[in-house]
């Protein structure tokens, strides 16, 4: 790709991001909504952790921060997924897809804009929550060390491929599949072993958990918090699984995008 073509691509990506950032710039309820659930989750689990520490007389339960770290990291996956899905759904709600896809924007540029918006939304959602955990419960997520970046990256990637799967379903089934954007990731929570080890799950469910990158991330997180060790095997498994799931989700999205062009859904999908 030439420099001019790359600049033109960058401008189209920025155009789509600007379309969404302009909405947030003026709307404090939208900004508040981004922080609302993560902060609420943090408060609930933070006080639960405090209560358990006092009740058991074991401050390690709080100091170790397993619950709090779980909440914070799982929010990265949740917010990452919703960031992509909601950015796409905004186009459907405003019935704007017809205009967007008769412009020269390429589908992959649209995907880049959705990922950019997801990243922005995730940072806005998570940062205040991390600060709150530090202020209220003296829990410093960054005490996990540099490996935290790898944990977060894996969870963000997982949120993204789940979102591509959801948007592919919306392209195929229309707004009837919209509810999946809000619920699918929550359905993966029990299998992601956010608050307990995979070994707690019944044997029949463990393969499902181990097929998800998130279960490996949280196993790694607990090892880092409890023993101060980095489980590279779990991190490698998480990256490998993310690569496989991402390839499958992107291929499904591309396939459904083409099917939508065959069915004429890009014009009628918001109806």
């Amino acid at each position: 790709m030439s420099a001019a073509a790359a600049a033109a691509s960058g401008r189209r990506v920025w155009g789509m991001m600007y379309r969404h950032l302009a909405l947030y710039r003026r709307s404090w309820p939208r900004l508040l909504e981004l922080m609302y659930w993560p902060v609420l989750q943090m408060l609930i689990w933070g006080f639960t952790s405090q209560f358990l520490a006092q009740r058991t007389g074991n401050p390690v339960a709080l100091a170790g921060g397993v619950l709090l770290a779980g909440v914070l990291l799982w929010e990265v996956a949740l917010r990452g997924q919703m960031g992509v899905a909601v950015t796409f759904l905004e186009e459907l709600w405003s019935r704007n897809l017809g205009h967007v896809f008769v412009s020269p924007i390429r589908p992959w540029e649209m995907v880049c804009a959705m990922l950019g918006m997801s990243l922005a939304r995730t940072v806005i959602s998570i940062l205040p929550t991390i600060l709150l955990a530090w202020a209220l419960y003296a829990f410093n997520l960054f005490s996990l060390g540099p490996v935290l970046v790898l944990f977060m990256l894996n969870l963000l990637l997982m949120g993204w491929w789940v979102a591509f799967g959801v948007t592919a379903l919306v392209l195929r089934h229309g707004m009837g599949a919209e509810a999946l954007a809000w619920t699918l990731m929550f359905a993966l929570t029990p299998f992601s072993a956010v608050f307990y080890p995979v070994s707690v799950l019944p044997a029949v469910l463990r393969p499902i958990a181990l097929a998800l990158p998130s279960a490996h991330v949280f196993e790694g997180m607990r090892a880092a918090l409890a023993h101060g060790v980095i489980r590279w095997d779990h991190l490698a498994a998480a990256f490998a699984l993310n690569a496989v799931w991402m390839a499958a989700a992107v291929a499904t999205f591309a396939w459904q995008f083409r099917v939508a062009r065959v069915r004429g859904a890009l014009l009628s999908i918001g109806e």
Partner: protein
Amino acid sequence: MNDAIDVEGLRKCYGKVLAVDGVSFRVPAGATVGLLGGNGAGKTTTIAMLLGLLIPTSGRIRVLGHDMATDRFAALARMNFSSPYVALPGKLRVAENLRVYGHLYGVRGLEARIAELAAQLDLGPLLDRPAGSLSAGQKTRVALAKALINRPDLLLLDEPTASLDPDTGDLVRTWLERYRAESGATILLASHNMAEVERLCGHVLMLKAGRIVDQGAPAELLARYGRDDMEAVFLDIARDRRAA
């Protein structure tokens, strides 16, 4: 003369429903051509295929020299589209909407272009208002500004004056005539307003049940059907009355 649009054997099936049935036509560069037909005749489907929104079942489309099956983005950068049935984001302000599409089309000197369009289409007082809060006539002017943001060589318009009062409709038609005269752009217009078609179009394609059943300059069609206005010609074709 080069053809801005060259369509050959275009067909579109939705399952067992044949929406467009072997349509072939050419639109010379700089012409204004009307696409007429009743509801379900295949106008919107044809326009959607010309825009690359819809993949044809078979047939070939070349737009501004580019094959839409293999090279559609090169064509899309030089064309634009307006329809009252495809909305602009209602929560964005008018200026923000124009900025978004200016970026998507890679418009240079974007703020100056927005100011120019605002002056020409009398959008100045509307620029800071949310697009969703505008009246139908104001929305149409904004949609037209969006469609002209990249100074397109080819403009596809799907019922551009639908639901407009006569005054605003006339303003839009006057503006389209001016744009075409100044820029030499090609316009393909789908409309149910026969007076509009007579005024704007040098050539008309009459669609029925997915096929082109007649075509010609408005004056030719009027003479052929022995009618005084295009509305009567439209009814003759819709009701299977033969040309004289």
